[in-house]
């Protein structure tokens, strides 16, 4: 594999990490959703490039799913939900932007150190991909922890899932990648549309997950 292929793959995967960072400091929901669409776009490009490089046409399916479902459908659905719930003006982060970003940088460094140390004799592309994927995953988890709003947490969860897909496509010859991505998409779909938001809306009249705690009667 030539240096060019590697550089492009590197670029897309690095772009995914960058977009994850962008999500960390968004404090408005619409902006967060839009950035998530951008995240999905970066994933689409990365997966499509892998499909081309690895000569694995089935990965194009994953790319199409990422494009159609994650980049278009979910952001549109979330837009609708936010508008219908009237929470588009909500602003909240639990920790300040500065510390969150610093923590994020630390996480990226950690994932680099871990993956590069553990896989010294793997394929160079796979190594880089895995390192970025772990970084995306950890940043998604950080996003979930840092948000109080359910929509924010769902987006954090979905960006984690993007990181998993990135890892799965980066490793050459990994079986069942397409199936995994389809399955994850379904999980996300259920997560987003079905149970979570509407139920919270019906019962608590807010999408703040803090309300769940009150409902459990465990926090006054």
């Amino acid at each position: 594999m030539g240096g060019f292929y590697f550089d492009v793959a590197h670029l897309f995967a690095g772009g995914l990490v960058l977009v994850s960072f962008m999500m960390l400091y968004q404090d408005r929901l619409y902006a967060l959703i839009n950035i998530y669409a951008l995240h999905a776009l970066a994933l689409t490009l990365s997966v499509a490039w892998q499909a081309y490089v690895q000569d694995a046409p089935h990965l194009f399916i994953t790319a199409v799913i990422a494009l159609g479902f994650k980049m278009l459908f979910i952001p549109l659905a979330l837009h609708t939900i936010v508008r219908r719930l009237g929470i588009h003006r909500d602003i909240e982060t639990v920790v300040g932007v500065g510390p969150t970003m610093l923590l994020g940088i630390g996480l990226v460094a950690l994932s680099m150190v871990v993956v590069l140390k553990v896989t010294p004799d793997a394929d160079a592309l796979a190594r880089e991909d895995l390192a970025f994927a772990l970084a995306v995953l950890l940043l998604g988890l950080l996003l979930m922890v840092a948000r109080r709003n359910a929509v924010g947490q769902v987006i954090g969860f979905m960006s984690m899932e993007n990181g998993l897909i990135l890892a799965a496509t980066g490793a050459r010859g990994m079986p069942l990648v397409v199936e995994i991505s389809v399955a994850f998409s379904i999980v996300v779909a259920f997560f987003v549309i079905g149970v979570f938001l509407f139920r919270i809306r019906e019962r608590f009249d807010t999408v703040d997950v803090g309300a769940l705690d009150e409902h459990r009667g465990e926090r006054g």
Partner: protein
Amino acid sequence: MTNSVSVLLLLVAAQLATAVIAVVFSRSASVGRLVYGLSFFISSLAVVLLLFHLLALGEVSRTSLPLGLPWIGANFRLDALSSLFLLIVDFGGAIASLYALGYGRHEDAPHRVLPFYAAFLAGMNLVVLADDAFTFLLSWELMSLTSWALVVAHHRSEANRKAGVIYLVMASFGTFCLLLAFGLLAGSAGAYGFDAIRALPPGPGIAGLVLILALVGAGSKAGLVPLHVWLPLAHPAAPSHVSALMSGVMTKVAIYGFIRIVFDLLGPPAWWWSLVVLALAGITSVMGVLYALMQHDIKRLLAYHTVENVGIIFIGLGLALAFRAYGMVGAGALALTAGLLHAVNHSVFKSLLFFGSGAILTATGERDMEQMGGLIHRMPHTAFAFLVGSAAISALPPLNGFVSEWLTFQAILLSPQLPSWGLKFLVPATGALLALSAALAAACFVKAFGIIFLGRPRSDAATKAREVDRFSLAAMYALVAFCLIIGILPGPFIDLLAPVVKSLMLGQSMPHQSGVAWMSIVPIAESRSSYNGLLVFLFIAVSAWLAALAIHRFASRATRRGPAWDCGAPDPRPITQYSASSFAQPIRRVFGSLVFRARENVVMPPPGDLGPARLDVALIDPVWDGIYKPVSAGILGLADRLNRLQFLTIRQFLMLVFSTLVLLLLVLAIWQ
């Protein structure tokens, strides 16, 4: 399906079927006799088969069933060691079933006892037959759970329920340790078959860890101090024939587990192993008998004596480990023979004593010795059997307890040849502890026999006691016969153990005893020491007969019955007799004030008050207060703290996941 182990497995299956029968016909009145009869029959068949197997120096026979873990199956194997312990199990089972044919009639809730009784026997058989870790642990748990069910059979009593809880906790803890031990033995490849473990013994560090885990795991079931706490609560709580099985047989199964792991699977021993085993064993034997002396509940007293005797058996095993570590296999064979013979003997006389206590319980309805007295007149057969059992457990010649303890002492006397200074000091100290425990055991049984059977009845129940049924007496007399035979003619029994010892002691066993003149036993050399049970027995018999003859011949025949001289103030109340607690007082003052921090408090009535003075004795259990109370308090406190984890918010749970993940990654990053 013709080899011995298959036949034995069929017998186990029959035993399990008996348990099913007990469940199905639990409402029928005669089901007790049926279940005990079948158990007696099955166990006797197994005993006969095993005797043939052991006498014919039977080859190792094995079989495997397509049960259990799919890639291992359920493997069973019969070698010399397992046939010896199966013999103990099935002999104990047969005799207990015979006893229960009579005793079981007084059971008020037979449907709570019968199914578990049969399954308990099957479980113990399976533990000894198992040839892979999975089958072993599964059978071990079957044995623990069924015996737990028997302990809580009379669940209406608060004390029994408490005993059940403590037993369950300790049994789980013991199994957990054994689980870890087998996990370490199997290694990362997951070789759980005993053959695979034997082929690939672990390194010295792992082996040491396995030894400790096996000692804790098997020791907690056998009753090593300080893991014995459940034993004196649980054994007496069960019906008496089950108490006999638990004390006489189940502790032996635990010892079998220890021997199987440490002598067979673990490879060559390191010298410090014996240090640990001997120290624990010595403490166990003395603590057990001291606890027993403080007890006035007959069954609990017997249970504490089980603790003591397990200590004595472990002294033999520890010595064997020490000798084997230094390649002195001859001495090691002697020590191992002593330990194994004591295991056999203890199962015989402890069953006998528990049967006796069951007979007393049936006759008087009492377990408290202070309510008994004078039973020798009402229950002469039980009294005789109990006396023989007491003499045997006190290691008096010419009974069986003496032989094995004497052999243990012979092994201890060889210890100066050991090159290690630590052992040179520890072994004689252990010997001193053993001597002390033997002497105290004798004192304890003088107390038990004297208070129960001699003197005047201390309660109405004791006055109205009647001799028990024929089945119970037959079982007791059978055991009396064994106490005498093993004591008088120990040679053949030592030879019976030879193949077992050979298989564990690098092919060495004690010298052949059957050919020695006058049926003596000679453990090392004639010039050093020998013991002739027959001679001692004849001497005792002849001298006793001569003494009796002389008294009757030459003493005045003009006997005259009258009141004993009583300082002119006859007191008809039996409560003025010497009591169990007064008997124990001197020993309580000497040892109890040190070990149990015993305090005696005399409350005198004020002048003019006609009320009686009171003597209160307060004892503190050092093991319970020193180890178990802090541990349980610590666990409860920790549980209280961790309780808060249930009530976190979703974000806090996520935070937990997140920080755990980051922490693990950090560990990975730094450690690699």
